[in-house]
């Protein structure tokens, strides 16, 4: 792949995230179906250390295929520590999150896949273009006859999320929350913490409650928590989960390493009561997660 540098890299003070993006771009840009790759700067400010967002413009009719192979691609060629998960809190985009080691640090890599030749594929202001086939003399991307994105988004929201994906989301959100809390961004940490607890709640719903059905993606405020104490209190395993979840909520966003280690333990114990096979299946990756965060 030939990278075409158009602008200076955003967040130049974060070489770890940039090195990670270059590596990911080299892997994803191998396919001729990928028309462009843009590194997008963090939305709020450059203090979002350890996070990188890549906008991937894919030939419209191959967008579904690309999304199908993306997680395998990132795990196999980039070496993500945990399986990727789809962040449904991002509206109008297929955005997956992968935790990638880079120089003994963990980078939260966000990959947003969009159809080439559509407005969504336009690079946001301040982006750094890592690949642009049109600029290299390739044909510009045709506007797809049918925009597959709405159908893919609808399918994504209909899909049942399994406990492994929810545990992964919980651990990755914990990584974000810790970074925010440590940097003194306590309100952002609080916001992330509620998403973390929600993911863990959904893991318990999916594992313990028969017929819980698909996880709702747009619940009214607090609706998912209404009656949850009583629901968990019905069984011994549920009561154990409730105890761990209470302790996690009481402790709040972890601002230092001991607090993070404690939070990881609580998350894993909660998940372990409800879905022991899932926790056992992720034992190796979770051990790596701890080691990169120096929790061992």
């Amino acid at each position, binding site marked *: 792949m030939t990278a075409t540098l158009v602008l200076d890299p955003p967040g130049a003070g974060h070489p770890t995230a940039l090195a990670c993006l270059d590596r990911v771009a080299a*892997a994803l840009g*191998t*396919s*001729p*179906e990928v028309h462009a790759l843009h590194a997008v700067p963090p939305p709020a400010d450059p203090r979002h250390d350890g996070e990188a967002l890549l906008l991937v413009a894919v030939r419209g009719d*191959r967008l579904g*295929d*690309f999304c*199908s*192979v993306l997680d*395998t*691609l990132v795990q*196999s*060629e*980039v*070496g*993500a*520590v*945990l399986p990727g998960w789809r962040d449904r809190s991002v509206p109008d985009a297929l955005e997956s999150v992968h935790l990638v*080691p880079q120089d*003994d640090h963990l980078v939260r890599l966000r990959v947003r896949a969009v159809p080439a030749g559509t407005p969504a594929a336009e690079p946001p202001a301040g982006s750094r273009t890592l690949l642009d086939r049109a600029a290299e003399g390739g044909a510009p991307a045709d506007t797809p006859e049918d925009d597959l994105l709405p159908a893919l988004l609808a399918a994504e929201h209909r899909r049942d999320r399994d406990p492994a994906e929810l545990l992964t989301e919980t651990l990755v959100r914990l990584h974000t929350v810790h970074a925010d809390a440590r940097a003194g961004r306590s309100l952002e940490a609080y916001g992330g913490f509620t998403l973390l607890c929600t993911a863990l709640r959904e893991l318990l719903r999916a594992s313990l409650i028969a017929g819980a059905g698909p996880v709702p993606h747009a619940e009214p405020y607090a609706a998912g928590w209404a009656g949850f104490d009583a629901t968990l209190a019905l069984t011994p395993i549920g009561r154990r989960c409730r105890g761990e979840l209470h302790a996690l909520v009481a402790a709040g966003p972890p601002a230092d390493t001991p607090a993070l280690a404690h939070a990881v333990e609580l998350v894993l114990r909660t998940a372990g009561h409800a879905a022991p096979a899932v926790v056992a299946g992720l*034992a*190796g*990756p*979770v*051990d*790596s*997660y701890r*080691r*990169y965060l120096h929790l061992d």
Partner: protein
Amino acid sequence: MKALSVLSEQVGRIRALDPYTLDLVGREALTVPENLATEYGEYQSGGWKTLSLYNDSGDPMDATIRDCEAKETTLLERMPATRELLRSFGLRYMWARIARLQPNSFLWEHKDYHELTDERQHHRLHIPLVTNRSCALVTGGARVHMAHGHLWWLMPTHAHGACNLTGPDRLHIIMDCYGDEAFEALTADMGLDGVPVDLLPEPSKKELSEHLDLAVMLAGMGYHEAAEHSLLRLFYRYAMPDGTVYDLIVSTYQRLGDEERAEAWAAKKNVMLCLD
């Protein structure tokens, strides 16, 4: 139980090592130069690097093992605790190496020692210095994590592979030695008692078909290496007849009508599993 009995002919935990000695050895290994030699490129995904501690040339960068009467390399001379530990076993070494396996690195399914001509028995020993739970040895349809703190044995003439799935770096001392009385004495109490062993499941036809479809999709989009790696990694997930992952890659390229790549992988299977 039968599976464990078969497995114990391929891998075993020999004995615990003194923690203080192991700490010293680990510190020495962590301070060796970063520019380790890369050998056996065709057997690995990248990320496997070694420096020799024992060989017949004394050069630590000489890392392609062969039958020989090994001597200490110039590197081992600078590692007193490691030298003392290796000498203490009283073994007749053919080769000894420090091996670094980086995250997301794999030694693909293969067999060793078939190129060696010495009629004496060969054995491989491991001392894990730095490891994590995602590091595994797969042999005999089982996944074994060689835990820190012990000396381990492996018979690498069987199809086997090693991986460091998610990191951080794995660091082992690997010793190839000849079978003799010292080896017999050292390994007298060897076994798998108390060793967590994951017996891998056999894949269903449906599972294999899904993996093949995914690989075809990857390769069809131009992600050839990712397609190959996704199938090679199945060796660490499922118990399958020797060479199945190579057959799957051949099938992938046959489905895409890419006969050149299909033939190359059929040939590679023969090399990796010593079938020629």
